[in-house]
């Protein structure tokens, strides 16, 4: 090969890497540069005293507090829906499912994992319209529908990490309990799951991250710009990512824009924290397996 072509290719690869780092560096530093000055307690609580707001004694108007609470509640509720179903499906696919049915389940789950999130949102919306027509006209897109739709969105993540962690276990671990006379269920509940807990949890944390950042699903299923803290499962609510989107399309003053930057930094911090946590757990698992082998 011509030496210049070789130099060219090497140079190109380095350029690509440096441009990528530059682009992300620019993006983040711009966000921090604009957002850091906006960060303060009044960004979150506005006029209300922080303690009063946290104890729900007074309602917060204009601050980010309702949006942050909305996002956290949404995450918790969706994960509560998703964990039992996800872990049960993961165990079924990893330990019970026979080879005739597995491709069928796999195909449907792979499609579910690949479906654009807006489509899951549209599904949630369609379900609420359907229920509104046929069950009760009190049902509108609401917190409950959002959390269920988000649970559908993150289910594949939880199922896959559970299934994979079971499948990838060393053969010796899988069979020790059985050899000592444990039944299949005992083996799963008392040996395989506890042994695998940190990788299952890392999958769940990834799913939490998806819940925190997703905008398209909640946009179609009941999030609004101003609602306060959700009062019931059938109520409207606020959430951080939607707030950012709303500000970007509809800000009236520099002040509101600053709030958008502040909200972006808070959301980014939450997501980065969750991401780091999931990575640490994953590394722990990797180290344990490395020692074993």
């Amino acid at each position: 090969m011509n030496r210049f072509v070789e130099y060219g290719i090497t140079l190109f690869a380095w350029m690509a890497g440096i441009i990528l780092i530059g682009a992300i560096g620019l993006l983040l530093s711009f966000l921090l540069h604009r957002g850091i000055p906006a960060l303060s307690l009044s960004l979150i609580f506005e006029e209300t005293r922080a303690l009063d707001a946290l104890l729900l004694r007074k309602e917060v108007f204009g601050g980010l507090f309702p949006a942050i609470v909305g996002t956290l509640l949404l995450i918790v509720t969706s994960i509560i829906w998703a964990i039992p179903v996800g872990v049960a499906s993961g165990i079924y696919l990893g330990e019970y499912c026979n080879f005739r049915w597995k491709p069928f389940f796999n195909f449907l789950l792979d499609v579910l994992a690949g479906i654009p999130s807006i489509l899951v949102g549209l599904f949630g919306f369609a379900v609420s319209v359907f229920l509104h027509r046929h069950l009760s006209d009190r049902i509108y897109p609401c917190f409950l529908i959002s959390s269920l739709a988000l649970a559908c969105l993150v289910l594949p993540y939880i199922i896959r990490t559970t299934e994979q962690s079971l499948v990838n276990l060393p053969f010796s671990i899988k069979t020790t309990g059985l050899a000592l006379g444990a039944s299949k269920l005992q083996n799963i509940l008392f040996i395989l799951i506890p042994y695998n807990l940190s990788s299952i949890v890392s999958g769940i944390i990834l799913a939490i991250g998806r819940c925190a950042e997703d905008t398209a699903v909640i946009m179609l299923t009941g999030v609004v710009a101003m609602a306060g803290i959700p009062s019931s499962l059938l109520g409207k609510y606020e959430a951080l990512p939607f707030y950012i989107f709303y500000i970007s399309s509809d800000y009236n003053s520099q002040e509101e824009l600053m709030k958008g930057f502040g909200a972006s930094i808070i959301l980014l911090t939450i997501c980065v924290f969750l991401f780091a946590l999931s990575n640490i757990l994953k590394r722990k698992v990797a180290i344990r397996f490395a020692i074993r082998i």
Partner: protein
Amino acid sequence: MRSSVEKLAERGFLFGALLSTSITICILSFMFLFSLPLFKGGHIAQFLRLGWNPYEGRFGVLPMMVGTGIIASFAILIATPFGIGCSALISVFSQQNFGRLLRKLVEFMTGIPTVIYGFVAIFLLVPLVREIFQKGTGMCVLSASIMLALLILPTIVLFLSDAFNSVPKNYLDAADALGATPVQKLIYVIIPLAWKGIISGLVLAAGRAAGDTLISLMIAGNALQIPKGLSDAARTLTSHIALIIASDYESPEFKSIFVCGLILFVFTALIVLILRLLGYFQILRER
């Protein structure tokens, strides 16, 4: 434990699996159910073919299909060379310091919320694009494609560098023994052996690009027209759904979003099928 408990637990696990897989089927059937009036009325061909003009009663989703196609393919076009460059850097040229740092950064990128990419792009990229074209608002196909390219780069880079790393070590040793330079190893050994992985990564990224809502909704301009150039505003299938959702439930506009949904669903299923043919899921499961 008693065998009845065992049976019950197995039933429970099976129920979970059936519930989660039925979601996919439910999504498909709801899309059908809600766009059924259009199929019945025989207007479906019109919906696919014609443009969008409410005043003439035309609600074709063609502009959105073209918009999605153009934005997603430009994003792939921009991201592919960068992706190949970065993953070559990570797995071949600089396996130590810089490459490792780059991989960490790319993994970190997967954790950044999409809405933040869009938010920053409005204030950073859009004014720049406006300057370049000297017309319009800067919210156009080019802006959206660039941001989408950045969004899908992690998918491409992580997948490609894994594909590069999965080339058997004795092949690389053989190339080394023959005195091959790193570039020669990349061009003559690694890429020919990893091509399935490369295609899988790109197909996966194409799916992400076409399915993303926020970037195109925020910075593609959302104009209801077939874009004629990079500086034109465009609307994608996904942002069309997000924009129309608030309208009257009985209107044809509203029904058209379920046609968009069906198209996106079929597209996703196709991508999963292609990845299956390429053996992508085998690669993933063996890892």
